[in-house]
């Protein structure tokens, strides 16, 4: 069973505010940051916190992140969604496809 994000010893939160942006820019931003912070994310030292009001991104970003071996949580906030991406123990993926 996957750990919840609150249980993880996350040291750094990388926040991306892509509200107002549409696809594919939102997915590209997420991919770029997953790549830039790959080591920290893979080591469990960081998590991505993405704020988006683009519903399509709540499908495309989690789908891509999960395929790369990350754990994802989507939460509805007021007027937008947050997508949390972090690493739990499991498969050793994590690079860009």
């Amino acid at each position, binding site marked *: 069973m996957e750990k919840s994000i609150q249980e993880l010893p996350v040291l750094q939160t990388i926040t991306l505010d892509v509200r107002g942006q549409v*696809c594919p820019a939102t997915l*590209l931003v997420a991919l770029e940051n997953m790549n830039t912070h790959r080591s920290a994310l893979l080591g469990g030292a960081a998590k991505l916190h993405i704020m988006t*009001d683009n519903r399509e991104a709540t499908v495309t970003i989690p789908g891509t992140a999960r395929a790369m071996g990350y754990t994802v949580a989507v939460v509805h906030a007021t007027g937008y969604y947050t997508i949390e991406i972090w690493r739990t123990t499991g498969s050793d993926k994590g690079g860009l496809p």
Partner: protein
Amino acid sequence: MLTSSTLLMVIFGLLVGLIAGFVMYRSDYCLAGMFRNAIMFRNMFMLRILFLQIVFTAVIFEIARQSGLLPLYPFPILSAPSPANLIGGFVFGVGMVLAGGCVVGTLYKMGAGSIISLVAFIGLICGCGLYAEIHPWWGPFVKASTFFKGSITIPQLLGIDPLGLVILFCLPSMVVLWNWHRQDKWERPAEVKGYIQPWKTAIILALLGLFSYLAVGVPLGITTTYVKLAAMLENVFSPSHVSSVQYFKVMSLDVVHPFTGVTLKGGPGPEIDSIWFIQFPVIVGIILGSYFSALQLKEFTVYYKVPIKQVVTAFAGGVILGLAARMTPSCNIWHLLGGIPIFAMQSLLFLVGLVPGTWLGGIILLRILNNKVGKG
């Protein structure tokens, strides 16, 4: 003048648009995204849904035709194919990736508060207006390069009843669709509120296309009204110029609907005509439908802090999209969800051009964003 028949057309168009906008927002039914995600990210899910919609539309159109309900077949405005359809499809593909949506996707995203889509919409109107200026050169090219004159669809070209081709296309397609269904490939997990699985929206849109065809003689299409909007705006500032533009005098629709007896007559000029009464309410309906959909979910928001690079790209994409929608002529909704189901050769050429255009648009977009996206 608003007669009872035009009033009915307005109410009908508004209802069709409201339903379309509502479900498209809930399903993220972005036709531009279908091709873009397949080509850029190898995500084929939404293309499968589009395929479902095309097959379902082909079946219900043929059932309606066999029942004698489609006396205007092929529907008006379609014509024989030309390389212009291919070139237009290619340019359209580039534009829709840069704009972040097609002519309809832009509307429903704008209805939910997207500033980028509003900018793309303004670009679209500018692009359509720009086309009117180049029509004196492009129009003769289309006319001179048209081939298979007198034949609009493949069945017409082959001299066969469309039913045979519909069966030949749809039966194997249904086997493929059924297999996808058994493999759970019609649905995708979604964590947003009020999500409608896209296959349901595909069926609803196909039915709306049929209702439109039955009621006003043409399936869903809206781009001529984008030109009209451009012409109307230009008319405010320079009426003498508008009256001198040849394209604004074209009469692209001039038929009497055999069932209703209503004369459908109109073109891209600034006049309020049948095209306006058919298409404008649909445009307004899609925006409002999406607005209500987003509002109900408490998701309607307007964010102004958008990277300027994306705003400029969306505007440029909109201009290219508008230009292409007239060069082709017509948009992806018209061709993919109206023309292809009846095997219109124009529409098939549009699709052949659209795929490489989307690929090129993706490459251009990646270069424009250049790893700095989202930080502007």
